C-alpha cells in the first residue's frame, strides 16, 4: 500500500534534498576548476577548446623543455626546501616554548606568531623589499627565503601547538617524577610525541613556500624568478596548455602532500584552527 506522505514529512525530505544538493554543488564548485586544468593540460590544441578534441602530452613536453620554467621550478624547490628547514626549526621550538615554557602572556605571543597568516603577505614582501633597498643589499636569495620563512612559521606553530595541546601531559609528569630533567623529558617524551605535528607543519611550510606569490613578488630578482611568478607573467599574455601542464605538476604535488598528511597525522586534526 502506498500512502501519500504527509506535508511536514514532504518538507522534511525536500529540506534534506536541498541541503545535500547544495553541498554537492559546493564540492563541485571546489573541485571542477582543478579538473578543468587537467582537461586543458591534455588538450592538443594551442588554444583552449571545449569539449577537448584529443589527448596529448605536448604541453608537458613544452613545459619540461622550457628553460625558463625549469629554472623557475628548481629555484622554487630550492627556496621551499630551505624555507621548510628554517620554518620548522623556528616554528617548532617556538610552539614548544609557548605550550610548555610557562611564558607570561603566551596567548598574545601566539597571536603575534600567527599574525603573518592574516596580515597581507604582500606587505611582508613590500616591507622587506623596502628594508633591503634602504640597506642597499639588493635582492639576495636569503632575502627571499627569509620572507617565505616568516609566512610559513605560523603553519608550523599551529600544527605543533595543536598536537602539544592534545596529548596527555601526565606522560611528561611521569618522566619528571622518574628523575628526568626538563631537557631530557622534552627530548625523550615531548619531542617524539610532537613529531606528527612538526612533520605536518613542515609539509605545510613546503607547500606555502612552493606556492608563495605575494611575498616573492617584491623579493625575487629579475631573471631569477620562482615558478608562481613565472606562471603569472606567462598567464598575463598567453593562455595555452603549458600553464595547464605546469599546473598539473603543482596539483599532483599538492595531492601527494595531502595523502602524506593523512598518513602521518590524520586529516581530522586539521579541522582545528
Amino acid at each position, binding site marked *: 500500500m502506498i500512502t501519500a506522505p504527509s506535508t511536514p514529512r514532504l518538507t522534511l525530505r525536500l529540506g534534506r534534498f536541498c541541503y545535500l544538493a547544495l553541498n554537492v554543488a559546493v564540492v563541485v564548485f571546489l573541485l571542477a576548476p582543478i579538473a578543468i586544468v587537467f582537461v586543458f593540460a591534455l588538450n592538443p590544441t594551442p588554444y583552449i577548446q571545449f569539449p577537448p578534441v584529443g589527448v596529448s602530452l605536448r604541453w608537458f613536453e613544452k613545459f619540461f623543455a622550457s628553460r625558463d620554467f625549469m629554472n623557475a621550478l628548481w629555484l622554487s624547490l630550492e627556496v621551499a626546501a630551505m624555507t621548510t628547514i628554517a620554518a620548522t626549526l623556528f616554528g617548532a621550538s617556538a610552539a614548544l616554548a609557548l605550550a610548555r615554557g610557562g611564558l607570561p602572556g603566551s596567548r598574545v605571543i601566539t597571536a603575534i606568531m600567527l599574525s603573518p597568516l592574516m596580515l597581507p603577505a604582500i606587505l611582508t614582501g613590500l616591507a622587506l623589499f623596502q628594508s633591503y633597498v634602504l640597506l642597499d643589499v639588493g635582492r639576495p636569495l636569503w632575502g627571499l627565503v627569509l620572507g617565505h620563512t616568516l609566512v610559513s612559521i605560523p603553519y608550523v606553530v599551529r600544527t605543533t601547538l595543536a598536537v602539544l595541546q592534545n596529548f596527555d601531559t601526565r606522560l611528561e609528569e611521569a618522566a619528571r617524577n622518574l628523575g628526568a630533567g626538563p631537557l631530557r623529558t622534552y627530548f625523550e617524551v615531548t619531542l617524539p610525541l610532537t613529531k606528527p605535528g612538526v612533520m605536518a607543519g613542515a609539509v605545510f611550510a613546503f607547500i606555502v613556500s612552493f*606556492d608563495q606569490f605575494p611575498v616573492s613578488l617584491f623579493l625575487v630578482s629579475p631573471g631569477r624568478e620562482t615558478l608562481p611568478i613565472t606562471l603569472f607573467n606567462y*598567464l598575463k599574455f598567453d593562455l595555452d596548455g603549458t600553464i595547464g601542464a605546469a599546473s598539473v605538476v603543482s596539483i599532483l604535488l599538492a595531492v601527494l602532500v595531502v595523502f602524506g598528511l593523512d598518513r602521518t597525522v590524520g586529516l581530522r586534526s586539521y579541522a582545528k584552527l
Partner: protein
Amino acid sequence: MNAARAGITPIAWLIAPSALLFALFFFLPMGLMAMISLLTGNPVVQANVDFTTKYYRRILDDTYYFEVIWTTLRIGLLTTLAALLIGYPLAHLMARVRGRTAYAMLMMAVLTPMLTGIVVRTFAWMALLSDKGAINQALIGLGLISKPLPLMYNEFSIVLGLTHIYVPYMVLTLVGVIGRIDERLEHAAQNLGASPLRAFLEVTLPLSLPGILAGSLLVFALAISAYVTPILMGGFQIMTLPMLIYQQISSSFNVGFAAALGMVLLTISLVLVIAYNRILGLVSGQRDLQ
C-alpha cells in the same frame, strides 16, 4: 594556566630565535615602512631627507584613491559573503557527518584546492570563464547562445575566483566551531516540536556566531590583500589597493607613496587581526567553560 603557575621553565628560551627573527625581519621592516611613508627620501644614501606628510595628503586629496580603497573593500565584502553562504552548509555537513571516510573525502575536497596555489586556480577560472573558455564554448556548442557571455574581466569574476580561493579557510574555521556545539541541543529542540530548520536557526546558528565572525574576518582580511586574482580576472581594468601598491614600486618606483598605501592596508588588516583574535579567544573561552 597550570604551566603559568608553575613558573617559567628553561623551555621558554626556545621562543628566543623566533622572537628575534620576528623583531628584526617582521616588525622592524614594518616600522621602516611606516618611516619611509613619512620621509622625502632614503636617509641612508641621500642627504637632506626631511619629514613629510605629502604621501598621505595625496591619498586624502584624490578621490581616485578612495575609489580604489572602496573597490578593494567591496570585493572583500562580496567575497566574504559568498564564502559564508556556500561554506556554512559544507562546514555543517562536515561537522555532523558520521563516517570517517565521508569526512576524509570532504576534507580532501576542501584541502586539495587550498594546496593548489593561487596562480593555478586563477588560471583554472580563466580557462572556465574566458570567451573561448569551457563554459562559453559548451553553451555555444549546445546552441544556447551565439555570442560568448562576458563572464570574465569584471568584478563578478574577481569575486568568483577569490571565493574559490578563500572558501576553504571559511570552512575550516566553521567546522571546528560547529563541531563543538553539542548536537543534542538541536535534537532537544526537535523533540520539543521544532522543525529541523527551526532547530538549526534557533539553536545551532546562534551558537556558531563566533565562528561565522572569525571565518568572515579571516576571509575578508585575505581577500582585500589579494593580488593575482584581481589583476588576471579583472583584466587590468579594476584597480585594488595591493595592485596599486605594486604598481607604485614597479612602474614609478615611488617607494614613499607605496609605503603610505601599504600603511593604509596594514591599518585595515591590523584592526581585523585584533578583532579576529578577540573572537577566537571568545570561542576557545567557551570551550574552557564546558
